[in-house]
């Protein structure tokens, strides 16, 4: 049986969550990198 509503929901939400999680990770990595670079420059 084709569950088209569920399939659209999983597809949209899944892609969105995936992008959101990787944006969050990239922002954290970017901030941590900036902090480390600043500290290294200061030293």
């Amino acid at each position: 049986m084709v569950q088209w509503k569920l399939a659209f929901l999983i597809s949209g939400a899944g892609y969105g969550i995936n992008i959101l999680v990787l944006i969050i990770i990239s922002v954290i990595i970017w901030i941590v990198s900036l902090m480390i670079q600043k500290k290294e420059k200061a030293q």
Partner: protein
Amino acid sequence: MFGLYESALGQMTLGNLAMLLIGGVLIYLGIVKKMEPILLVPIGFGIFMVNLPIAGIMTYTSEGLPALGGVKEIAEGKIGILNLLYYYGLETELIPLLIFLGVGTLMDFSPTIARPISLVFGATAQLGVFVVFLIAHLSGMFSINESACIGIIGGSDGPPTVYLTVALAPVLLGPITMVAYSYMALVPILQPPVIRLLTTKKERMIMMKPQIRKVSKLELILFPIIVFIVASLLVPKSAPLVGMLMFGNLLRVSGVTERLARAGGILNDILILLLGISVGSLMPAQVFFNPRTLLIIGLAVLAFIFSTVGGLLGAKFINLFLKEKINPIIGAAGVSAIPMAARVAQIEGQKANPKNYLLMHALGPNMAGAIGTSLVAGIFMGMLR
């Protein structure tokens, strides 16, 4: 004693013969054409092993799944030696997870850390997974769980594909794994036309500095720890895959566990051998020859194409907000297929502008693609299992 003279010839079917031919083609592609040889050769020979009737190496249930059992069942002749391999290696998800640990020991995330936005391309390049998931299910030929496993072929990453398929649709494990690994070798053929179609020559000519920023050791050590913690908190079901990948990478970058990192690399080779032979053994003629397998082969092409589209469009979108523009071709490398997709970006970039060296920049999204596909596997597991 007359079993000694028993011959399998009389029981050979046309399906068996065709499978022997397919196994032969895979071995040929691996040995002669050098296409993913470390996987295609064992898969091809695995197909030989299970398509010779009454060889007794692998037995199946009526649904086409490998019969389960232990040493006792082997002694009684109810199952073969490859059933044991399937049971302990794949049914338990041990092989794909340990392979990912080994992969982690081989990966250098410096390009991803130097340009964290690369992680986003690793996510947008999962478009093919979700588009093909939809198409597969709406075709009416596949259940929702099976469709997820077909879609994830578009992530171009073996271990998450195997991990998800064992959990959600083990009956399709043979065809899906074979298609996923053999199509990875087709990335240099499938991606360039899509790249040229979706980017202008001006975009492809965008120069990027040949060198990336030098990443400190502290950044390299913190990266796997941060990725694992955040991914596990936000998508808990991705924790086994992301955890193994990041653990392997921490062993590589810590600077004090070189021996363990080397062991991870060797373990990887052993496990890929076991995976190859196990996957080949999942393709007896009765499982392989049906319209669904042919459809999977076609859908996989679509998945790769849409994933390339997603990566390119992601990079073009991000470019709208950047002062120093990036070459959108590197977005296409978000389709994992390490390092083939990054090489394609390098070649296409140089065709448009011979002074351009995109390889290091493309490796960032390329590595991020492995994290993206692991997250997608976790998302599907969370929603469907």
